[in-house]
């Protein structure tokens, strides 16, 4: 049975149409990357998946919004939200599952420190622990590598990949830059305007396929093992696959 299924799904804001008649099924243990220009409805796609699978246990890593110092909680508390934050009442004591999840992402050393004092990479590792603490069968990640340095990108993406190989967790991964995770990816879903394209990375990330999808000349280059898409946005600049950050 598929972990996630979308049948004829469409997204529209007022008169503005985004992906239309989207069909997608993701198997347990599959790693699917969602690519596309800004405003192509990538985050909304994750939100739709959350709504459609509300009865299932889903791990969710939202787009990074650093925590300020005045939240006055520890990393431990953030992870614990993932376990029992939705339950009513106060909830005393400590939880083994929380310790285990923290250990799994190697955050033991800083989990008890104030969240606001931790680096972006440390906060993001705790986010992964939070999303995985309840052993979800689906993991949805929204730009989890944004604003992390290369080392931290590697650590966070390996944690996510390890999870799906060991526990057959289906992973949906929204990103601007596919390069750090390219070897892990099973399928690419590429969203442009009302259109979309789904397939293996080798079939989708080609000059021919993307030119057809965008409806304008697009070139996919392989520069020293890094994929770069030229001409993907309105103006001619490297975008979508090539380390572009806003």
């Amino acid at each position, binding site marked *: 049975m598929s972990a996630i299924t979308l049948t004829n799904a469409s997204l529209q804001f007022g008169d503005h149409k985004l992906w239309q008649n989207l069909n997608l099924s993701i198997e347990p243990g599959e790693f699917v990357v969602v690519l596309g220009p800004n405003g192509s409805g990538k985050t909304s796609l994750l939100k739709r998946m*959350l709504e459609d699978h*509300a009865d299932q246990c*889903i791990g*969710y890593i*939202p787009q990074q*919004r650093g*925590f300020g110092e*005045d*939240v*006055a*909680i*520890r990393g431990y*508390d*953030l992870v614990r*939200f*993932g376990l*029992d*934050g*939705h*339950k*009513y*009442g*106060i*909830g005393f004591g400590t939880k083994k599952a929380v310790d285990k999840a923290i250990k799994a992402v190697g955050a033991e050393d800083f989990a008890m*420190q*104030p*969240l*606001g004092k931790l680096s972006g990479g440390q906060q993001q590792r705790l986010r992964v622990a*939070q*999303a995985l603490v309840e052993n979800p069968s689906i993991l949805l990640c929204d730009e989890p590598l944004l604003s992390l340095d290369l080392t931290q990108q590697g650590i966070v993406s390996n944690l996510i990949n390890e999870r799906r190989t060991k526990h057959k967790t289906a992973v949906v991964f929204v990103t601007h830059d596919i390069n750090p995770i390219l070897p892990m990816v099973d399928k690419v879903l590429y969203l442009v305007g009302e259109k979309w394209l789904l397939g293996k990375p080798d079939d989708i990330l080609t000059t021919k396929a993307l030119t057809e999808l965008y409806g304008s000349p697009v070139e996919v280059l392989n520069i020293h093992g890094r994929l770069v898409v030229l001409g993907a946005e309105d103006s001619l600049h490297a975008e979508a696959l090539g380390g572009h950050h806003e």
Partner: protein
Amino acid sequence: MNNLGLFLGQSFAQNALLAAALVAIICGLIGPFVIRRNMAFAVHGISELAFTGAAAGLLFLSNALAGAVIGALVVAVAIGMLGVREKERDSSIGVILAFGLGLGVLFLSYYRGFATAATNILFGNVYGVSATQLGFLIGICALVVVGLVIMYRPLQFASIDPEVAAARGVPVRALGIIFLILLALTVTAAAQIVGTLLVLSLAITPAAAAMRLSARPAIVATLSVAFALTAGAGGVLLSLASGTIKPSVFVTFLSFLIYFVARFVVAPLRRQ
């Protein structure tokens, strides 16, 4: 200090102390949530509008407290409806606050009772707390404490991490509205002690001081209540001892002193 022993035997002082302690407990409890939800301005808005409600209550019902509760609840719901997004919220509150205060001044100008009744709303009159009002305060406190205990985990989750909370099925929006209602009740109760103008000294300052000292939610809550109790009950005791100065003065002074020491003395020492 001779005043103090003399006064403590009398029921007005006992009522005042009990009222201050009750209000301090709920303010201390709700304070950390107010800060985590970035709602200090909402507290101020609600309390100013509790003034309008109280003025209306005096004029139409001859009962300032009932008016204040109704006023605060109306405003809380209005803020909840108008300002869903954090960015829009402050401007909505500003709009409601300015209009509401004007309305309050209008009500007061028609009020022909004791002039002190009006200043009591603004600056508090804990010595005037009657047995009935005390019962009312106990009811409000019980409701707020029970409400906060039940909502504790999901409210914390929704306040700090709203997106994931929503993804996990926490009713973020509904909790926000219920929280505003509990906040309105707390603010009204606190206004009895320190007045509507000084509510922040009990609803924000102790929690802000606690958050300077710890990042453990349980310790933050405990410290916040302890600080609020020290300021609230301590303010009443100092006022009794002084004989002439209003408790609100000492409450605001004490809570500011606690914040100052926490932020500029204890926190830097702990960092070393």
